[in-house]
């Protein structure tokens, strides 16, 4: 993975980990970052490849904390390889692979399998997440120690939410014992009931059953209490309501071990996007009100919310081309996350540094991995972004095997020009010089 040294010059380098934001040069040697400097490149080694990135932003590769693939078990939806292609195109150089596969990733041998398959087929880094409970059933905790040894970097039950406070307390304690982060999707299944969208007037008009905000805030409040009691590194996988932001802000005032993420969907879209029963907007958590969406933005600005993830969840037409109440949840997002997030930069809602931090250094810190940074010695995973590049989302352009995007037809500004993993270029937009 080493090859010739690489120098990227004349880029606007934005590195949230250090706060560096200036036009300068990046030097890569042996697949790792050798130096970042303002101005012209310094100390260029003999025979280095030189890339002129004038007009482009150079940022660390994105770290996505929530990506579902279909491997193993549902390869027709997404393989690690196709997810890797999609990730590279979207500027994501590392993603946490959710354990919701068939079988679920709840055993060391499966973590090992996943890591080997990823190594062999995927062009970006796959970070295996292991299940908190066996079979994702929410009952018995898995072998955290052995799973960690096999290469799991975090524990999560993916799209499943553990309902038992006792199981969670035990899982949090045991994870703290191994100093491993736990990412938990908060949803009270009884309160969510048969709900399929935000509980609001809009749901009433459509005749759809609603999911009330308390189906999220009650389990979140419980988790935050348990996190404080056990000292676990707790990450609320995704929040969607304004009240959740308040709960998080309060918990963070008391403890440093909690964090939270928001899906790009809940940051960019609201319940009105469901329109006439459009199932690609059927998501979990559901798209909430515009006030809730604004609260997500506010939460990122204030630091109550730490990370933005794609919630990339490939689903086939068989389960999506159904009546809304009978369709599956989920939308793909690896290839649109960055551009959708940049809307908030262009609109002046969130500055570029904060936005990129939520997709690079913060998720890496939460996992405790050496990624999402341009500091010397770190793996040379970085992206070149054409901040203003105008494009329209077309599902036929996707690299993902599934087409269930919530951004079909959206006009976006900003796109990845090139993606590098370990100093090697793994993606370049058509027309971008090598």
């Amino acid at each position, binding site marked *: 993975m080493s090859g010739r040294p690489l120098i990227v010059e004349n880029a606007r380098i934005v590195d949230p980990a250090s706060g560096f934001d200036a036009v300068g040069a990046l030097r890569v040697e042996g697949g790792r970052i050798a130096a970042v400097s303002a101005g012209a490149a310094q100390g260029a080694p003999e025979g280095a490849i030189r890339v002129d990135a004038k007009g482009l932003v150079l940022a660390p590769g994105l770290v996505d904390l929530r990506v579902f693939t279909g491997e193993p078990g549902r390869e027709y939806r997404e393989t690690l390889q196709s997810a890797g292609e999609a990730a590279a195109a979207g500027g994501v150089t590392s993603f946490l692979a959710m354990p919701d596969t068939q079988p679920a990733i709840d055993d060391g041998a499966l973590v090992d399998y996943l890591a080997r398959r990823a190594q062999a087929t995927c062009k970006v880094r796959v970070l295996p997440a292991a299940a908190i409970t066996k079979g994702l059933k929410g009952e018995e905790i898995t072998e955290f120690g052995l799973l960690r040894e096999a290469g799991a970097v975090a524990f999560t039950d993916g799209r499943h939410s553990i309902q038992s406070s006792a199981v969670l307390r035990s899982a949090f304690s045991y994870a703290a014992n191994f100093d491993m982060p736990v990412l938990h999707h908060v949803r009270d299944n009884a309160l969510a009931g048969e709900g399929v969208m935000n509980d609001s007037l809009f749901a009433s008009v459509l005749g759809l059953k609603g999911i009330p905000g308390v189906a999220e805030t009650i389990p979140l409040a419980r988790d935050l209490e348990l996190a404080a009691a056990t000292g676990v590194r707790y990450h609320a996988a995704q929040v969607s309501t304004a009240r959740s932001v308040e709960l998080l802000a309060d918990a963070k005032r008391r403890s440093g071990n909690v964090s939270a993420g928001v899906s790009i969907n809940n940051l960019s879209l609201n319940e009105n996007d469901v329109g*006439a*029963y459009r199932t690609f907007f059927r998501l979990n958590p559901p798209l909430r009100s515009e006030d809730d969406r604004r609260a997500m933005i506010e939460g990122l600005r204030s630091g109550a919310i730490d990370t933005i993830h794609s919630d990339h969840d490939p689903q086939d037409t068989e389960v999506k081309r159904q009546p809304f109440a009978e369709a599956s949840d989920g939308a793909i997002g690896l290839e649109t996350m960055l551009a959708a997030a940049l809307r908030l930069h262009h609109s002046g809602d969130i500055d570029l540094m904060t936005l990129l931090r939520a997709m690079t250094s913060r998720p890496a810190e939460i996992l405790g991995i050496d990624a999402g940074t341009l500091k010397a010695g770190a793996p040379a995973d970085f992206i070149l972004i054409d901040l203003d590049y105008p494009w329209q989302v077309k599902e036929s352009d996707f690299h993902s095997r599934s087409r269930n995007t919530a951004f079909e037809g959206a006009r976006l500004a900003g796109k990845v020009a090139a993606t590098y993993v370990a100093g090697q270029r793994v993606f370049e937009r058509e027309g971008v010089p090598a």
Partner: protein
Amino acid sequence: MAPASPAEATPADPLLGVTIPFKHKHLLGISQLNQYEILELLNRAEAMIPVSRQPRKSLPTLAGKTQINLFFEPSTRTQASFEIAGKRLGAQVMNMSVKTSSVTKGETLIDTAATLNAMRPDVIIVRHAASGAVELLSQKVTCSVVNAGDGTHEHPTQALLDALTIRQHKQRLAGLTVAICGDIANSRVARSNLLLLGAMQVRTRVIAPRTLLPVGIENLATEVFTDMREGLKDVDVVMMLRLQHERANGRLIPSVREFYRFYGLDAEKLALAKPDAIVMHPGPMNRGVEIDPAIADGARSVITDQVEMGVAVRMAVLDTLLEETSQVQS
């Protein structure tokens, strides 16, 4: 064609006697209709009433047309009403009941739609347990589609037949006050009625315990009452809804007897409505749950009239949708 009834059209009304063009290919919900289109459908339905009252009940305007009744949810009454309506207009009617248990196992709704569409029907009448399912199906076929009830979303022909029944008894719609009582949250009948009555300048009230009211109902153009006695004061029409037995299991309401005590229509509560108030129910009724049997079968009940108007409305809807000149969209 019958002229618009006097209450809606004053002598100066330029719409009097004018046939209003109907531009829709499907009837998916009341929400797609404006007040003129509703009025037109009601007028056409009124004109259909005598057809069913004559000895030979036939007006073969749909001879040679094929109608498929596709019911994913069992409904004897609505299905029979659509079948009779189609047959009285001379259409060939085929009933297809799809067991709910087998739906989505294997063949999807869209597969079913494509299969039926290939048989070239002229209209498909659809009932489905999921809100929005009928609209989804309509996007996948080339013929007209009529919504015979989708989940808790809409049941447009029920709202039309209710309006026609009210108009037959009160000679007008505008200015009346109608109270809809019971399980509003889970009722497509309530939703369609609120839309239709609102469009026709009828004042509406909903009466239900909080657990049976949909979120945000107070933001719709309707008055909300949780006390039935308050809500029934001086209304012209009392529209009762069916309470599904499974709602009375202690989750949404504690018991049938408690529901009947506070939200069942009995003589004492009905006495608060106007003396000439009529009582309606979309059926099938739970006597002793939401309505006193003596009232259900009493002089002020117009429930069997609703059934008769149902056939007239469905004849008018079929006739209107399949009228070759009426289809603008393809």
